[in-house]
Structure formats: C-alpha cells, structure tokens
C-alpha cells in the first residue's frame, strides 16, 4: 500500500495557462447519465457486499430497475428538449438486458463509456488479467452493439485496483472519470498511453446530493446553478469543465425532474459561452491542444515527482 498514488503532479489552480474550448467557449459542460445494471443475485466480493441488506434486496433492486424502465426514458426526452447529448456511463451488461436503451441512445449520437460489466461486480481483488478482461469485454461489446470505440472509463461502483488506470491507458482510452482533484483536465502519469483525468463530480452527482446528503430537489437545482456560475466565471481565465453525473432512478423521480430541468435551462441560457458536449470530445480537445502546454506549466510552476501511478520515482 502507498500513501500517495502518484497518479498526477501538483498543479496550482491559480495562474494556469489559458485553455479555450472550441468556439472560444469558457466552460465545457457535459452530462453523464449512469445507465447501470444491478444484479438481482450478485455474487459476493471479499471487500464489499453488493446489497447491504443481503440478497435479494427488493426495494433497492427494483428502484434501479424502475430507472431503466421509466426514468431513463424521461431523462432522455428531457435532454432532447434542450438539445443536449449524454455521455453514458454504462454497465456493459445492460447491452444484453436492455438493447432498446442502447439503440435509443446510439440513434441520438450519445457517447458510451465503460462503467464495468455490472455495478454489482467490483474491481477489488481482481488481478491485472481479470481487470483487463473486463475492459476488453467493454470495448468489444459496445463496438458490436453500436460501432463506437469507447474512450472513457469509470470503474464499476468506483472500485479500483493499483492497475486500473495503467490498463485503460494501455488500451488507448483517452480519459478517466475516476479522480476528483480538479475542475480542469490533466494528464495522468501512466506507464503507457495518453490518459486525461476528466472532471466528473461527486459533489454535484445526484447519488451524493440525494442519497448521501439528503438534499431536496430545489436545493439540488440551486447547487447546480451556483456550481455552473462559478465555473463559468473562472472560465474567463482558463477554460473549466462541469459535469453533471446522473442516475435516472434518482433524478427522474416524479418529484425531482422538473427542478432538474430548471437547472438545465440555466445552462442552456448561457450557450454563447458554454460548450455543451461529451466527455470524449473534451478529452480529445485537451489531448490535441493542451497536453504539452499543461506539461510545461506543471514543470514550471507545479511539483513534478517523476515515476508513474503507484510506481514512485526511485
């Protein structure tokens, strides 16, 4: 075990070189609906029990199933109304269970990225070959269903190993949503590849705001607007990223969806300054235009420690 994962170098937020998004936009905004499949009878994992109450957990399982049967479709139509595309954090197994969802999203040119096979199968305890198999399954399954080559990763249920980021970088992924240290992209120190840490979010993620913090829908909408306003203001200096990670089983509830739509309207009203896009496109823009700039600034004003993730410099 290490104290410091050494996945990225220290890069002070103030005084960074200016990032501009396409069209000279100041804030890159993306929405990441998590379309997850939780198993009815998941196997045990030595580090985490899938259902805290034990199998089967009817209440928790059916709430998530409701999300795929009803909630997702409401959310998709809501994004349609505002001309926004989703970047789907996908439980890959859902391709087999609910191909109708995949088809509907693909028809809208939404992006898919991997969130593991099921959200009840954790990375804890996997060796590198097993974790590689999950990632290869992800690439193969989405490609077969949609023709799309996935470029992003969010480990299932945020469970990681020391190998996770090296593995996805080695398989030519462009971005990871697993890290929360910044409001701008930054390169990850992997052994191979060219992997960007993409601002996702826990703080404005509906699981945190609804299930952990217990905020009401109006508080959540208010938080989203404030978060957006601040990051847009700071985008004047250097382009920022805001992601809203969602789960239809929470945000699409009948008592919550209209409040959420108010927040989306607020975002849409600022489209002159905001690039409403997908995770893949933000990662591509950073990799192509700012990778070297960021490296040079980190070397000049940050703290470069050498080595790679979980492999510190000798």
């Amino acid at each position, binding site marked *: 075990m290490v104290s410091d994962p050494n996945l990225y170098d*220290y890069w002070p937020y103030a005084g960074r070189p200016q990032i501009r998004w396409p069209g000279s936009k100041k804030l890159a905004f993306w929405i990441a609906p998590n379309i997850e499949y939780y198993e009815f009878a998941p196997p045990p994992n030595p580090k985490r029990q899938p259902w805290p109450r034990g199998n089967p957990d009817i209440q928790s399982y059916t709430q998530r199933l409701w999300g795929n049967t009803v909630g997702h479709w409401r959310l998709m139509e809501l994004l349609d109304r505002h001309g926004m595309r989703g970047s789907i954090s996908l439980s890959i197994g859902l391709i087999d269970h609910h191909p109708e969802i995949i088809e509907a999203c693909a028809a809208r040119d939404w992006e898919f990225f991997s969130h593991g096979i099921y959200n009840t199968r954790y990375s804890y305890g996997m060796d590198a070959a097993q974790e590689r198999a999950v990632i290869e399954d992800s690439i193969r399954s989405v490609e077969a269903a949609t023709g799309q080559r996935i470029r992003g990763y969010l480990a299932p249920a945020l*469970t990681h190993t020391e190998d996770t980021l090296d593995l996805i970088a080695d398989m030519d992924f462009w971005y990871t949503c697993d890290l929360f240290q*910044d409001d701008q992209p930054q390169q990850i120190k992997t052994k191979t590849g060219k992997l960007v840490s993409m601002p996702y979010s826990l703080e404005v993620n509906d699981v945190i705001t609804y299930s952990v913090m217990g905020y009401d829908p109006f508080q959540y909408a208010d938080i989203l607007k404030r978060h957006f306003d601040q990051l847009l203001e700071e985008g004047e200096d250097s382009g920022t990223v805001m992601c809203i990670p969602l789960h239809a089983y929470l945000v699409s509830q009948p008592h919550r969806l209209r409040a959420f739509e108010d927040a989306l309207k607020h975002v849409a009203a600022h489209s002159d300054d905001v690039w409403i896009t997908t995770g893949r496109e933000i990662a591509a823009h950073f990799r192509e235009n700012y990778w070297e700039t960021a490296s040079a600034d980190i070397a000049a004003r940050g703290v470069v420690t050498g080595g790679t993730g979980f492999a510190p410099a000798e």
Partner: protein
Amino acid sequence: MPLPNDYLTYPHRRHGVDHDRFAWTPDTQRAPLELTGGKKAVAFIIVPLEFFPLDPPAEPFKHPGAMKTPYPDLRHYTTRDYGNRVGVFRLLKFLDAAGLKATFAVNAEVAERYPPLMAAIREAGHEVAAHGVSTAHIHHEGLSEAEETALIGRCRAVLPEATSWLSPARNESYRTPDLLAAAGYTTLLDWEADQRPLSFATENGPLTALPLMHELSDFKLMVDNRQQADVWADQIIEAARFHVVDHARAGAQCFGFTLTPYVAGQPFRAASVKRLLNTLSAMDGLEVCPAGEVAGLFAQAGPQAD
C-alpha cells in the same frame, strides 16, 4: 464483581476546573475587556491544509475526512486533494477580494509536498500556523514523549515562522501543550474553553488558547450536518453580530471558524463564501485578523482579569 472502591474517590473534586492549565472565572464575574483600536469583537479565520494519505492508520481513531472505501480509495484521496490544488486558491482569491487575512494551519507534509501553495499563502501575507505532520499523525496518549516531540520538531523545522498551533483532528495527549510551549508556539487553537484569549499554563511557560468554534466548523455543518452553504454562512454572520452587540454586556470577545478548502472551496459554495467574507469585512465593530494577532489586540487593552 463490582467496581473497585476508589472508583468512588474524586481527587480533583474542588472549585474550578479539574486540571491546572488555567484558573476558572465565570464570564459575568470578571472585568470586561476592550480592544486596541476600538472595535467590539474579533473574528479569526482558520484554513486547514491537510494531507490525507491513501493508507491512513486509525491511531487512535481515523481522522475525520480520511479514506472510507477499500484500498485504493482514489475517490476520497482525490476529493481531499482537490482542496489543496483548487479549492484553496479560490479561498485565497475571496479573502483577497474581501481584504481579509487568515491563518492557514498547515500539515508539515502539505508544506513539504506543495511549495508553490506555501509561496502563494506567504506572498498574500496570511499567517502560517502549524497543524501537525498530517492527518495520519494524530497526537494522543499512546505516543511516547519522544515520539510526540519528534512530530512537533518536524513541524517546527518545516514551518519555522509559525507561532500558532492546531493539532490534527484537534486531538492532544495530556502533555501536548507542554511540548508545544517548549517548541516555541504561543497560540493554541485546540481548546475552545472561553470566548476571550485564555492564558494557558504549561511546564514551559504560558500559551494563549483561542476559541475556534467547533459548532461553526464548515465540515461539521455542511458535510456532517448537511446544511446548505447560505445557512452555514448566515450562522457565522450571526455569531459575529452577536458578539458585536454583546460587547455592551460583556466587553470584547473573539471567535474563530474554519474554511476547509475541500468543503468551502467547492464551486457551488463560492457565492456563500464570498458573501460571508464581504459581510464580515464590512461589519461595523468587527475586527477580522489572523489568530496570532488576536491576543495582542486584547493584551494592550488594559487590565486583564483572571
């Protein structure tokens, strides 16, 4: 088997407190104090800069905010690191805009890891206080005196200018204040036993204890208690107004509160933080200054009751 009979003996049962760190006088039975400069109350702002390692010990308990999920908990590691990379620079900007100076209580490991951050704090003219080695180095009775002295010595070496001290998790052993005084610290932020600077006896000369109010902690109110940022900010403003008004009854008083970078430095809390700092800065009768300057404002104000 019953408890031993000496469980019913009470060797420290007497008037005042059950230790020798300070004398006890109730608030209404001591002379009111006044402040140099004529203000009525003092607020001080503590910005804790903490390093949360990926492999935290639980010795003697897990530090609040430490890793929660199985190793490697990248989720909490990076969420805390956000504060030191991004959130703190937001707070520096808002403090500057409000014209306020704060006390940055810094883990030695943060100072060692992030020199550019230390340079930004020093350049802005804020107070740098010592905050132990890291969140993995809690002071407690299980440490030997040599071990605890070594921890304090490391902080002294890394932050030579610091005169104020905040312990990690605000936890101490019985001997911690004695060792802090020996190491040259003069202001102690762990004890919130009064509303005015409190002269605190140690084996190595006195410290001044200042009331950093746990009930106004941003971590406690907004993370543990899940309050909205405007509600949190309103309570600090209320505390400041209360003390300004209460001056007529009780004389000058002081209080401190925290701005934790990974909590108060979140974008969606920014508007509330800005409003809070601007309101305190403009409040009639309120002095806002670094912790290390608080005692001096009181000490020059006439006779101190004790």
